[in-house]
């Protein structure tokens, strides 16, 4: 590995590293626009100039690889002066419309002007005019006047998705990015061009004008849209609750994870968060009496569930757990069902329309925790029925208490008649989940779940990577995390209460996780702390 000196600091980095990354490793930030570590080198913006000893003039750091003994300076007067010039060039034809620009507050023109520009503007001639507010597709809108032609978006569509929708047309200062006339940018990764656009040229139609970015809070989380578990930040509007149309979650942004999603996030995941703040959210427990669902207290609802579980023999109980649930939720449920002796349990409900792998990020399995549900043993217990068997047994009134967690059975791949038979046949239908639907409407007891973004927890992705999500918002209304509900239920079952299972007695999700790590070999040794931001693999 070559050793080199950057700003007087000696570092050693792998051969092939460029000077932007090497400087980063040495704690120095080299400003840049066109360079992106996930894309090819374009060398277009010319901002990343650095001085190198024995080289007569500043060189672009993005296209200069480290060499043994190289001596690099990122903050010489000459470099600073060059940066100031390049900043001025970038802004010659820029409209300077920050007050009405959605990128304001997270715009690299603003940031670098304050850090590296601060020149006195002298361009008073007419600027070049280009198309403004052009929708490129369902998610992306273009303001070509704000564009600095860094070509990141073009390279993304060429190199990452291979779809090639975007180009830079014309030449000179009339160059502009755009689509071939009559086409749209609607590949499943289109939202990423918004993220990598360093300026306000490409903004999010969905997020636009909803809330100023400086009012946003951020939580490190995961996308729950498929089995990959892309790392995301959930951005929430809590400081100005009247903005963002009163919704708490404003947007999802991908968070780098080299092993999972790198810098990217698919559109299905990115825009799949609406359900969390949807009006259909279940916000209070409900119990049906005389065919009429009435909101009630948790105590009464849990009493109703405990009553049903006590009334029916274990083999008359069928539980449909969900790979949408966290490892913590699943493990607490597993302990509860083991304690009750319920073997009729499963988590695999076929989707109505099977998903497809797209060879990039999106997985055919649109559940975030199928691997966790498998490893944690939420499949049928000894002699137990699988999901289809449970439904059929309910229709035949062999399963009398049907407990459905998170599944909207009426929208599943099971035939409508089969689902209807089960829902009609069950004497007690418990629905536990986040959003109301046709299944919850028919339930005799409804338990409102906190959404994953409303608490702490982990998912295990298809690779076997256990990853943490952190609370972005608090549970809506009376909703509770499932693991806690299972604990409270266990407390109502004398046999279980006496067993004092650590997963069911937990006060916090990390305690549930510690319990499962102690019990399930695949998770042995893992803790919330050790998972860190990038997650850890389960034991093979």
């Amino acid at each position, binding site marked *: 590995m070559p050793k080199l000196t950057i700003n007087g600091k000696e570092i050693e980095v792998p051969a092939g590293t460029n000077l932007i990354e090497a400087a980063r490793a040495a704690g120095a930030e080299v400003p840049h626009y066109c360079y992106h570590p996930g894309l090819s080198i374009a060398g277009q913006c*010319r*901002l990343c100039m650095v001085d190198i000893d024995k080289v007569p003039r500043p060189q672009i750091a993005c296209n200069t690889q480290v060499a043994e003994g190289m001596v690099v300076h990122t903050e010489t007067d000459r470099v600073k002066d060059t940066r100031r010039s390049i900043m001025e060039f970038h802004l*010659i034809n820029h409209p300077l419309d920050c007050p009405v620009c959605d990128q304001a507050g997270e715009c690299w023109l603003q940031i670098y002007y304050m850090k590296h520009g601060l020149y006195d503007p002298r361009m008073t001639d007419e600027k070049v005019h280009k198309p403004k507010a052009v929708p490129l597709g369902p998610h992306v809108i273009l303001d070509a006047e704000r564009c600095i*032609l860094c070509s990141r978006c073009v390279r993304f569509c060429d190199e990452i998705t291979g779809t090639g929708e975007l180009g830079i047309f014309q030449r000179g200062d009339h160059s502009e990015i755009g689509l071939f006339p009559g086409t749209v940018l609607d590949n499943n990764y289109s939202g990423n061009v918004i993220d990598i656009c360093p300026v306000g040229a490409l903004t999010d139609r969905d997020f636009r004008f909803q809330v100023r970015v400086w009012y946003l809070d951020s939580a490190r989380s995961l996308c729950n849209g498929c089995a990959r578990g892309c790392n995301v930040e959930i951005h929430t509007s809590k400081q100005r609750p009247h903005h963002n149309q009163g919704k708490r979650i404003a947007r999802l942004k991908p968070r780098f994870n080299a092993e999972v999603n790198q810098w990217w996030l698919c559109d299905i995941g990115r825009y799949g968060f609406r359900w969390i703040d949807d009006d259909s959210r279940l916000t209070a427990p409900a119990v049906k009496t005389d065919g009429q669902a009435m909101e009630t207290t948790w105590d009464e609802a849990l009493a109703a569930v405990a009553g049903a579980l006590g009334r029916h023999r274990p083999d008359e109980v069928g539980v449909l757990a969900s790979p949408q649930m966290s490892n913590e939720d699943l493990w607490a449920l597993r302990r509860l069902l083991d304690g009750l002796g319920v073997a009729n349990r499963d988590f695999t409900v076929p989707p109505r329309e099977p998903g497809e792998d797209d060879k990039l990020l999106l997985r055919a399995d649109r559940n975030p925790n199928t691997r966790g549900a498998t490893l944690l043993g939420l499949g049928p217990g000894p002699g137990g029925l699988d999901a289809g068997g449970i439904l059929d047994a309910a229709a035949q009134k062999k399963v009398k208490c049907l407990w459905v967690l998170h599944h909207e059975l009426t929208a599943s791949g099971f035939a409508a008649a089969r689902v209807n038979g089960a829902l009609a046949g069950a004497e007690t239908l418990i629905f536990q989940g986040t959003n109301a639907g046709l299944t919850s409407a028919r339930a005799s007891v409804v338990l409102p779940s906190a959404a994953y973004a409303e608490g702490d927890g982990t998912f295990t992705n298809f690779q076997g990577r256990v990853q943490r999500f952190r609370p972005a918002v608090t549970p809506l209304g009376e909703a509770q995390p499932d693991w806690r509900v299972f604990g409270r239920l266990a407390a109502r079952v004398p046999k279980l209460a006496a067993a004092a299972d650590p997963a069911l007695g937990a006060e916090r999700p990390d305690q549930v996780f510690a319990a499962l790590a102690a019990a399930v070999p695949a998770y042995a040794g893992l803790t919330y702390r050790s998972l860190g931001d990038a997650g850890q693999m389960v034991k093979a």
Partner: protein
Amino acid sequence: MAEKILSKNFDVQGAHTLRGYRDGGGYRGWDKAKGMEPAAITEEVKRSNLRGLGGAGFPTGVKWGFIPKGSTAPKYLVVNADEGEPGTFKDRYILERDPHALIEGMLIAARAIDSRLGFVYIRGEYVQPWRAFSAAVKEAYDAGLLGPSVPGGGFDIVIHRGAGAYICGEETGLISSLEGMKGWPKVKPPFPAVKGAFGQPTIVNNVETLACLPHIVTRGGEWFAGLGTKTQGGTRLYSVSGHVARPGVVEAPVSVTLRQLIYDHCGGIRGGRRLKAVVPGGSSAAILTPDEIDIPMDVDGPKSKGSMIGSAGVIVMDDTVSIPDALMVVARFYAHESCGQCTPCRESTGWIYRMAHRIVEGKGRKEDLDNILDVAKRGAGTTICAFYDGAVGPYISYIEKFREEFEALIRSGAHA
């Protein structure tokens, strides 16, 4: 009058045909080169002090030497016939009137660099030159001079027509265009000799440069070097235009002075007027004043006056010319031809044109001149290719050398 070498066929009836070319001694250089080791050809060219005649003036033999030693990859010889530097027209003469000289030069260069495929990139507007050269290539194929029978594994020529973009005269812009893309120059490194056209080692040489090779091989590098100055060998073709009595292509040893070119070779200033200014090397070269023309027109002479020999396109301006008006014309050109790839050039060529245009429209402001100078100086040396540095040559020199004329115009508020 010195011996004509490169232009000896220009006015000979039928010299553009294979037969006519052979009658004048053509293909003897190739016949000799066929018996030479490739390295020996390169050595001969190094000895000749031949410098690239397209604009950059880089030593040709040295450039060939940049191909990685022992590389087994296919290597391409690319001919830059994208003549576009304003004030330059000499390659057109070679393509139309002496096309076999280029083919012969290509065969020699290809042997030196072990290339089996050559591309000739001819600017799209050059329809007649393209036809003339294509006819010559066909003759050469028919005669077995090209194709599989070329010793060393054969040699083919593909003629590629451009489509209208000055930047394609920049060697990596040309390569991008040859590859079927916009003519965006490539970020270097890698340099073309290592990774050029279609990702393979590539040598890009100008038409006139290659046309020198038959003579160098036939008569020796030493002879060629002796024709020129200490740092540059040979004669070259000067394109002289503007306010001279007899504009045209002039062949002269590179030691010829700019004054001799204007007054001896081209009959002086037309209508007996006074010389006001002269651009020595195509529009990208800094302008010179009448007291700066006693310089040899090799790579060093114009450099000594802060200009460059470039493509040796000499544009002569008499005392009727408005320099601010000339700057507007030149600035319009660079704004029009900036490829738009990198920021300093893309953004400032347009701005500088807008300022220059305002000045000649009588709307100049006193800060405009310093702004142009400052912007040009700040942008110089920061771009992907040499285009912007070329634009900076006229921006700075026109204003610095004729500042009073600009200031008077701005003060008066008159149209230029």
